[in-house]
């Protein structure tokens, strides 16, 4: 077993708003191995983006990483706990964009609007690598070529608004890859794109990953995208990872009722016209008003009355490696469950 690249345990990111606390990320455990693609899936508001931002310590105020560890195995062999670093300190800044880079959903807001693509990329390169302006420019051209940008020399002089959506996304990927990070965090990078462009960008990320051997933490709500690129998957619900498994197990042997519900509610190509989709009833609860016990119980079809609304399930590791937070899968409780249900 290789050493993991990133190990997150018990991570909590909370937002204090007027006396109350929103627990956006509430005790997340996650492992990313070198070269692996981990998909983080969940509906809007489940905390997946805040989770990603916590890793780079770019949580917007009043949010704060309040507990847990984010252990990054650095290139030098040193292990740093990112959660313990000063978010404005030198060490985290030497990691951001260098060892861990991020791409965002909306390239138009993530890229600087008044700086050319070229100067944004060369700035990033010069910040982290000791190279001359000219050398940085050559590297920028090289990385733009690599992401499939036509005529990269001319595009260096282009501003983001002069590019189409797909090209802008390529420019942002080029910016993220400019210092050859070991981990790329991709926060819904294809959500705003057309399916045809999405397919091309996914191919690109996959090829670049194979070529550069970097790990990818891919955040999405689209299970189709997950099936296309993931090695392993973590499903989030209300700030927690409720199920973590290899991609094949998620799609063919899902354990958590929420994962199963999500899979049943996606329209698949090949479905017959008029065929009914299953849905998960209700909606994601308001984070101010979190249900007691298992936070999924009000929407769960397999809810055990008297137990799921009281007991907060702990993380259970099943023999095949799947980790799940659900009372149905807690071994010692499984035996007592029928008795409990009869009461």
């Amino acid at each position, binding site marked *: 077993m290789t050493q993991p690249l990133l190990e997150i345990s018990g991570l909590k990111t909370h937002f204090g708003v007027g006396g109350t606390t929103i627990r956006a990320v509430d005790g997340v455990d996650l492992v990313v191995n070198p070269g692996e693609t981990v998909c983080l899936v969940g509906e809007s508001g489940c905390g997946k983006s805040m989770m990603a931002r916590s890793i780079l310590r770019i949580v917007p105020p009043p949010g704060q990483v309040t507990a847990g560890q984010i252990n990054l195995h650095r290139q030098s062999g040193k292990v740093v706990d990112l959660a313990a670093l000063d978010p404005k300190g030198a060490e985290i800044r030497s990691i951001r964009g260098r060892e861990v880079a991020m791409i965002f959903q909306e390239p138009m807001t993530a890229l600087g609007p008044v700086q050319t693509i070229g100067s944004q990329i060369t700035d990033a390169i010069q910040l982290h690598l000791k190279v001359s302006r000219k050398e940085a420019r050559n590297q920028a051209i090289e990385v733009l070529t690599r992401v499939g940008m036509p005529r990269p020399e001319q595009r260096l002089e282009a501003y983001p608004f002069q590019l*189409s959506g797909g090209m802008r996304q390529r420019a942002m990927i080029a910016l993220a890859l400019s210092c050859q990070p070991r981990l790329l965090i991709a926060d819904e990078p294809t959500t705003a794109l057309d399916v*045809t462009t999405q*397919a091309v960008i996914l191919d690109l990320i996959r090829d670049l990953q194979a070529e550069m051997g970097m790990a990818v933490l891919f955040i999405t709500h*689209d299970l189709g995208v997950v*099936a296309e690129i993931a090695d392993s998957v973590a499903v989030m619900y209300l700030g927690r990872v409720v199920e973590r498994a290899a991609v094949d197990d998620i799609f063919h042997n899902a354990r958590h009722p929420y994962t199963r519900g999500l899979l049943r509610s996606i329209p698949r190509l*090949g479905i017959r*016209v008029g065929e009914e989709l299953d849905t998960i009833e209700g909606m994601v609860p308001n984070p101010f008003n979190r249900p007691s016990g298992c936070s999924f119980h009000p929407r769960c079809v397999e809810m055990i009355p008297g137990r799921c609304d009281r007991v907060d399930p702990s993380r259970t590791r099943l023999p095949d490696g799947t980790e799940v937070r659900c009372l149905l899968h807690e071994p010692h409780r499984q035996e007592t469950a029928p008795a409990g249900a009869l009461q």
Partner: protein
Amino acid sequence: MTLVAKQGIRRSGSSDRRTPIYTVEGLRVHFPITRGVMRRIVGQVKAVDDISFIVYRGETLGLVGESGCGKTTTGRALLRIVEPTGGRITYTPPDGDPINVRTAGRDELKAVRRAARMVFQDPNSSLNPRLPVGEIIGEGLHYHGIARGAEIEDRVADMLRRVGLRPEYIRRYPHAFSGGERQRIGIARALAVNPNFVICDEAVSALDVSVQAQILRLLRELKDEFDLTYLFVGHDLAVIQHICDRVAVMYAGKLVEIGPTQSIFATPRHPYTEALLSAVPRPDPRVRGTGERVRLAGEVADVSNLPSGCAFHPRCRYATERCKTETPQLRPVGEQMVACHFADSLTLKGVGSYAA
């Protein structure tokens, strides 16, 4: 009219399906590009360029394509939210004479806009944040003189119940609702005045999957309950396949293919349709890497500067010299209508080839 007549006999459902509700012939929506202080016209953006189709009573017709292909503009032109620059749009009420929408006067247009309604993509920007839900839904009732005073409130409460919201919410403002609930409000507003035709413009695109499935189910239930006809504009082909009886595919302002959903998805006849279908991610890791994927190179054609001949030719892997010079016309091939010179000879891949 010949083209439209040909489409008319394609549907083999109940005879009811063959009654047109909306007939579109040669629709054009061009926007001028102006320059300088004199607003000199230097070009045209051909957002919608000469498209013809019929929506039959009781069916759901899907309109798909990439962003910028003109699908939303087409939907809006049907209600004259954007003014068409050419062509004919005819609305046929269930009982009464056909109305020429393009030349309709104020009263006629008002009648059309009562019978044909719209549900918008973004439930955040399509609801007035300063109006309580009761007024948002009730406004149409008042404007069309359907109800007055307390009766409006009763009908709004009833409408809220039908879309799955609690009638007590009538005095709340849109910000107090989640995305899925807001979309329900948008649907209630569209249906409050008892329309018979609804244009759903990307009505589920902004929603999470679990909520999306709920809204799709609601739309289907309401269709049966109110005997509606839908024009469903969207880009998610899996959703389209799920809800539509027929599908029309648009590229760069033109219709490239139209036909029954099953046959379009199983045997697409236009290379663009094939590419669109191939790009949809398949939600099963076991089929990853199987089957040949068609990838489109380049960008969607610029509608202010269209390529010569077939607008799709620069991205088409089957393109020949003929495609660069000669514009293909929509013509019947099998069960579909296709605008491609080689529709008869090409063997294209549909989704049947990878669906489990």
